[in-house]
């Protein structure tokens, strides 16, 4: 186990917990959404850390591909959430 594994792995876990806490507790939609994105970043960080084999060694490409997929999925979900939120505020303003 490399030092980088320790550092980045633990950071990933912390980011996940941090994002989760915000997503559960925060009042504001935007922060909750960012919280979920931070959670995702934490998971992705864990995945990329797992892929890392050390300097000069080719990392695991499968995990990189998974994270790429994950990023696009996350941005899709964020976009939909924001569109829904916009629709809500528009109606609140109208009403």
């Amino acid at each position: 186990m490399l030092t980088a594994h320790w550092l980045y792995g633990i950071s990933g876990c912390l980011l996940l917990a941090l994002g989760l806490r915000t997503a559960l507790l925060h009042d504001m939609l935007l922060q909750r959404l960012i919280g979920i994105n931070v959670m995702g970043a934490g998971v992705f960080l864990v995945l990329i850390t797992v892929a890392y084999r050390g300097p000069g060694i080719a990392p695991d490409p499968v995990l990189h591909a998974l994270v790429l997929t994950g990023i696009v999925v996350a941005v899709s979900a964020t976009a939909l959430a924001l569109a829904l939120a916009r629709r809500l505020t528009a109606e609140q303003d109208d009403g």
Partner: protein
Amino acid sequence: MTAMLVLDILLVLSLLSLATAALATNDARRSVILFMAFGLVLALAWGRLLAPDVALAEAAIGAGLSGALLLTAVRDQAHRALRSSRKPVHERGRANLRVTLEWTVTLLCIALAGLLAWALAQAFDRAPKDTLAQAVSANLAISGVSNPVTAVLLNFRAYDTLLELAVLLTAALGIFALGPARPGHRAAGPVFDGLARWLVPALILTAGYLLWVGAHAPGGAFQAGATLAAAAVVLRLAGRRSVGLPTGHTLHVAMVAGVSMFLAVGLGLLVLGRPFLGYPPAWAGGLILLIETAAMLAIAATLVLAFFGGRPTPAPGVAEKTS
């Protein structure tokens, strides 16, 4: 090694502090900007961990586009949504309850992080045999591309990518179904307009390059699509309402381009007696490029649509006068 360690510690600390800061503030705009900064540092971390493909995608999508989306939402006051449901706390009992809840959740989250880290440590200790990565390199020669990440994304696990494009399409359709976009804000000043004239062609060129290079080096459809979308976003900020994006039916075609091309290739091969998405090695490179091109268009169209927050409205003459 110590220099690397310092860099690692710096990266990790800034990641954690940026995330904390972004989540702690109550100012929405500030939060978004901090989150974008977080994304950029994250991209650096990906680079440090030898994941340049991911770094590119993070910079373009994770930090760039997500940030732009969030910023537009802040501008439209969308972050106020759902807020009304939490009533202001009046009674002391409820306030106490709230505090208890916060502490419970916080402790649970800390416990979760600890558990996860512990389990992860155990997993690293097991040091599983690297069979999957070996299988990828063993089959890379017949995958049609030389970038292993692209090989996984568009050949070995192409089915994931097909579904991912379907996710993107679903998001776009969901946004679409909510109705037309709200009219954009006024155009930026002439300086930005001038900048846009240079920036947009450059971005389009970059997108094309990324798409082509993805076969053997970091890059590919998603990064290219995101860059293309960025070009449209720049145009939008410069005041173009529909940014030359097709409206109505043609937009549909662009949105489904990725899924349809994927399906057409997959089912075509199935009809020819091969497995679904089982490219013959000789054609693999060409087919992958074909799919990627369509995917790039779809990604760009979808991301721009998401950025608009709805169906693009046909532009009235006023907005077009700068062109």
